[in-house]
């Protein structure tokens, strides 16, 4: 209670966790150096199943990667579009059930079933979007949260036998039914890794496209964006559809790999874990979901024998990160990286650099440097051509 809070209702501007210090290089431009680092990391990740012989570790990694696909999709609607959709797990589960039921009852190729799961989920997401997007702020999260709970409730209490109620679907074939257990685990690992890489790149590209700019504009300054002719409804429905489709694909991959899906895939506990992953990693950034998911998967695996302690620790993590590091670990890393680059730039230019970390507001020309614009209004206060350490 230090400062006197101003009681007037603030203009809705930026419903994301990163109000004070927005992550500026949320979707950084891909310089050759960055492409190389990314390539090396992907190659390293791809080699793991060849080196690793431990089946348990491999299965944990596949599960984590599936979760990562879900988190990337959620990050798009939550962080980039800024819609507080807490129904993503229900959409994911609908995709999974859709794919699983198609695999069970038809002889279609399982790949088509996974795609169909994505389409089912995208459809559900669009249906959810219309009433949700009429609401604002906290009402959005309430409605979507209630939507997720109701979907779970309906599946648990489903008496028709279509979903199998609490016990879930009977065993489905999955994508690699003909392979041996060890070989199929590897095949799944590479498949899901490919989905992760492709979706990260595609969504990062979308972040730089008209759609991404429109979405961030609507998130940061809805009234201004609407006044400039950017329809919040239209773009956000598109964001829901894109994110829903990817979540559905994640669900389809989940049902294929686990050969089943039950309501335990959704619900409050998995949602708590996923939210924690996203917030700890850094919402609205390209690397945040990856950092958060991988880090928490490691923590979870270490604590696997104490289910209660695990979530307690995650809860404490979440609390500490939200209070002390509001832009997540990706934001923290970016800030430190920026500080180091600023020092380097100062050395190079012998103190000419104005990059005194003016509350992280140095901004390159709008999108021209491929850099993301920081806070709305910040660009206006920055003298033209102030050096941005990130561009160099």
């Amino acid at each position: 209670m230090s400062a006197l809070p101003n009681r007037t209702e603030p203009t809705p501007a930026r419903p994301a966790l990163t109000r004070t210090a927005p992550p500026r290089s949320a979707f950084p431009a891909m310089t050759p150096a960055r492409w190389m680092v990314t390539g090396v990391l992907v190659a390293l990740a791809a080699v793991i199943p060849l080196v690793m012989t431990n089946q348990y570790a491999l299965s944990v990694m596949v599960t984590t990667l599936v979760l990562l696909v879900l988190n990337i999709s959620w990050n798009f609607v939550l962080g980039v579009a800024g819609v507080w959709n807490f129904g993503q797990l229900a959409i994911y589960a609908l995709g999974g059930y859709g794919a699983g039921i198609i695999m069970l009852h038809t002889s279609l190729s399982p790949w088509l079933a996974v795609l169909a799961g994505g389409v089912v989920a995208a459809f559900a997401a669009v249906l959810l979007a219309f009433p949700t997007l009429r609401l604002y702020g906290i009402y959005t999260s309430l409605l979507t949260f209630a939507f997720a709970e109701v979907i779970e409730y309906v599946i648990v209490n489903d008496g028709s036998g279509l979903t199998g109620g609490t016990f879930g679907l009977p065993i489905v074939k999955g994508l690699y039914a003909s392979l041996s257990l060890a070989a199929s685990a590897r095949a799944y690992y590479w498949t899901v890794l490919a989905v992760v890489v492709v979706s990260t790149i595609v969504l990062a590209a979308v972040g730089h496209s008209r759609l991404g700019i429109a979405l961030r504009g609507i998130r940061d300054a809805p009234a201004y964006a609407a006044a400039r002719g950017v329809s919040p409804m239209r773009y956000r429905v598109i964001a829901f559809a894109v994110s829903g489709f990817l979540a559905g694909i994640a669900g389809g991959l989940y049902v294929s790999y686990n050969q089943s899906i039950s309501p335990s895939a959704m619900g409050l506990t998995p949602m708590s874990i996923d939210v924690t992953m996203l917030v700890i990693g850094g919402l609205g950034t390209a690397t945040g979901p990856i950092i958060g998911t991988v880090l928490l998967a490691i923590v979870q695996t270490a604590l696997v024998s104490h289910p209660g302690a695990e979530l307690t620790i995650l809860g404490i993590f979440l609390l500490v990160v939200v209070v002390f590091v509001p832009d997540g670990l990706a934001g923290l890393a970016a800030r430190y990286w920026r500080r180091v680059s600023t020092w380097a730039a100062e050395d190079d230019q012998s103190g000419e650099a104005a990059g005194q970390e003016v509350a992280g507001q140095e901004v390159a020309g709008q999108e021209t440097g491929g850099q993301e614009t920081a806070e709305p209004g910040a660009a206006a206060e920055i003298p033209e051509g102030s050096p941005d350490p990130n561009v160099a």
Partner: protein
Amino acid sequence: MAATDIVGIAVTTIILGSIYGLVAIGMTLIYGTLRILDMSQGSMVMVGSFVGWGILVVAGLNPVIAIAAAFVATFILGALTQLVSVQPLMKRRNAIDFEMVTFITTFAVAMILTNVALELLGPQQRNVTPVISGGVNIYHGVNLPYQSMAMAIVSITMMAGLGIFLARTRWGMAIRAVAQDLDAARLMGVPVGKLYPLTMGLASALAGVAGVFLGGLYFAYPQAGDLPLLEALIVVIFGGLGSLPGTVYAAYAIGLIQATAEVLVGTTWSLPILYGVILFVLIIRPYGLLGKPSEARL
């Protein structure tokens, strides 16, 4: 629809509405005063159930003591929740995302409470002795358990008590003053720093008392707060966040919808039907029954 159905619906409406109201009114009180949505409210119901179980079953004491103990325990826990998860963020309260950040921190508290309970007490469902056993046959076959009757009476008394507290007492008026105009309240010498934990403690205590009764109706277990939380969320959206009368009306309206759906189509579909009705209402009135449009909409 037979006459028994109508009597049954009426009785269920009053019971469900009272219990929803008791959990949801705390959320509304907190939202009105602090502008946060308290996701730990469900865990307070769970804690109340376990305190009820501890006093009634393990210690074998009087129900009045159980209710009082649940009130005190959840009051302290609620005040602590405010100090841990909301107070450190108060300096950011003008940011547009304040609601969302506190939504997440109180959610983290709920996560911690649920899982501490899971670790300490285990996942099994525990039977809480009903506060009062037995029942009375009020109309051809419509049985009214005394437990439900007591629940409705206590809930209504507590809601009325809250109303009187807010309208008549010094602290109650201070809470209302802060909800209306924080700066003016501060200038009039309202100790805002003490008021916030008090408000959240009070709201949590209401949920805790509801928990003692809900534990008797269902069970005490670590996830016992999830469903009450969902129902309270639906009630507060429906009633309009921050409006106490709206919350009370919404609680009974939702009790009525759910009771009717249960009698006509069965328990399985009562929640989805309820959700459908809420969706319909929100499409017409996106800020709930009595919510203020300016707060809810762009």
